[in-house]
């Protein structure tokens, strides 16, 4: 198709630098110390997997990256999350433009209650893209990017929740990408999907890490083994070990990491 070649040049998001570092982050909910003195750096253009047993604070950590904890009751957050040297938890931090840098993919796909087309166009519209032609191009580009274009091009104006769960998850990814983020945050994004859709998402991540910093929380060690470049291992709210996947999986420095990898607990 000729249209697609034009599309690619005009709407392909320019690759951005992504810097995310967490400094001495503590999260309390009521009296519970959920995250303890977290200090990590998220490397750009690679996949970072956060692993650890249930309830260790993986998802909470991910949520602090785009301030989705704000609405939780009785939460106190101290420390810094620096996104491109801007502290997310500065008093008057303008949250929306930082959130825009973070594409979120949740555990269960959550399409907006509108058509497939509008799901992707919604984000662009709120950020000021109103030109119909331009929106058409973005929608097509992003749907192609997640491999959904062929499946849905004839029914773009059908409600998004008519799609299968796997398709919905890819649509959510495309929706996130359409606002040109620098990061992709995935919170167990494949756990609700069937094996094929799940593989699809993994492949997309491997493809997308060329342009984005991807942080994913995962329950499945195998998944981390397959695609992680960096690994953060958490236990009871603390980061036990963080480093390149190769090193963490083959030569864990800490006894706890070794035990977890051996399956002594999960």
């Amino acid at each position: 198709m000729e249209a697609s070649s034009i599309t690619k040049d005009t709407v392909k998001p320019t690759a951005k630098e992504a810097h995310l570092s967490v400094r001495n982050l503590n999260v309390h909910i009521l009296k519970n110390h959920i995250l303890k003195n977290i200090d990590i750096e998220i490397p750009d253009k690679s996949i970072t997997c956060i692993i650890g047993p249930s309830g260790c604070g993986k998802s909470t950590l991910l949520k602090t990256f785009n301030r989705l904890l704000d609405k939780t009751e009785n939460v106190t957050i101290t420390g810094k999350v620096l996104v491109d040297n801007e502290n997310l938890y500065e008093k008057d931090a303008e949250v929306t433009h930082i959130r825009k840098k973070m594409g979120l993919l949740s555990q269960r796909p959550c399409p907006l209650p509108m058509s497939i087309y509008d799901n992707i166009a919604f984000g662009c519209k709120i950020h000021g893209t109103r030109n119909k032609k331009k929106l058409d191009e973005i929608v097509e580009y992003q749907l192609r990017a997640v491999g959904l274009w062929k499946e849905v091009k004839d029914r773009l104006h059908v409600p998004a929740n008519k799609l299968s769960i796997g398709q919905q998850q890819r649509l959510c990814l495309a929706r996130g990408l359409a606002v040109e983020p620098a990061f992709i945050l995935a919170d167990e994004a494949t756990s609700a999907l069937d094996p094929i859709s799940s593989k699809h998402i993994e492949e997309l991540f491997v493809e997308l890490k060329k342009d984005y910093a991807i942080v994913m929380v995962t329950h499945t060690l195998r998944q981390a083994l397959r695609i992680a470049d960096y690994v953060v291992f958490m236990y009871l709210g603390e980061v036990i070990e963080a480093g390149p996947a190769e090193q963490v999986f083959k030569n864990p420095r800490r006894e706890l990491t070794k035990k977890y990898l051996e399956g002594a607990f999960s």
Partner: protein
Amino acid sequence: MRFIEEKIVKLFMIGATALVFVFVASILYTIIARGLPALNWDMITKLPSGGFYIGKEGGVLNAIVGSLYIVGASTVLGLLISIPVVFYINVYLPKDSKLAYIARLSFDILFGIPSIVYGAFAFTIMIYLGLRTSLGGGIIVITLLIIPIFIRSMDEVARQLPRELLDATYSLGATRLETMGVVVRQIAPGIVTATLLSIGRAIGDAAGVMFTAGFSDSIPTSFSQPAATLPLSVFFQLSSPSADVQDRAYASALILTIIVLILSVVGRFVTQKFSKNKI
């Protein structure tokens, strides 16, 4: 034993459902049996003539139009006021907010206040301000009357709003205000249901409009003129000693019922359209 229990409870349920049908059927029967013979084209196309509401001639067009004016305007006003309230208590306020709790409690109280109290309250204010009974007064009272219905029934749906949906919208960089587009779509079926309930209550209310909208033989041409309504028209005609005029009360009731029926059929159709888009 448990088998018998099951049978008894089931019988009871069937009985209760049947009872409801009997109510509806007997009301409809009464209205149709007495109203249909009196119903003619003049009833819905002519203004009353031959004296005030006790007349046998002419029709109740004044009341039909008055009721539709009041219902239409107050539904629009009600929606404009209640959607922001529902949005505020569900999206802006935290889940355990005291303010939201108090707000919900007050709407429950308002919900239970009889319409005559609204009418009397508005009437006092109107006297204080030196206003006469008018279309505008009627619209305001009915708006007050249906706002709690609007808010409570939309709120029930809005409380089920998935947190993930809001999170997903925020993640796109939306402000809380910008999530409104998403929230309104998500609760659209609730909005339609709330509107239907409110219209039903608004069009059938006699006590609220009695002191505020008043009654008139003509169709109001401005907000400051008194307006007739169908329930009051029924009430006045029924109070007449003449059996002919009483029959016309049933005919007016029949017209009222048909309007409600048309509105709910249209409403249900719209809801289905919406839900097709949703599920």
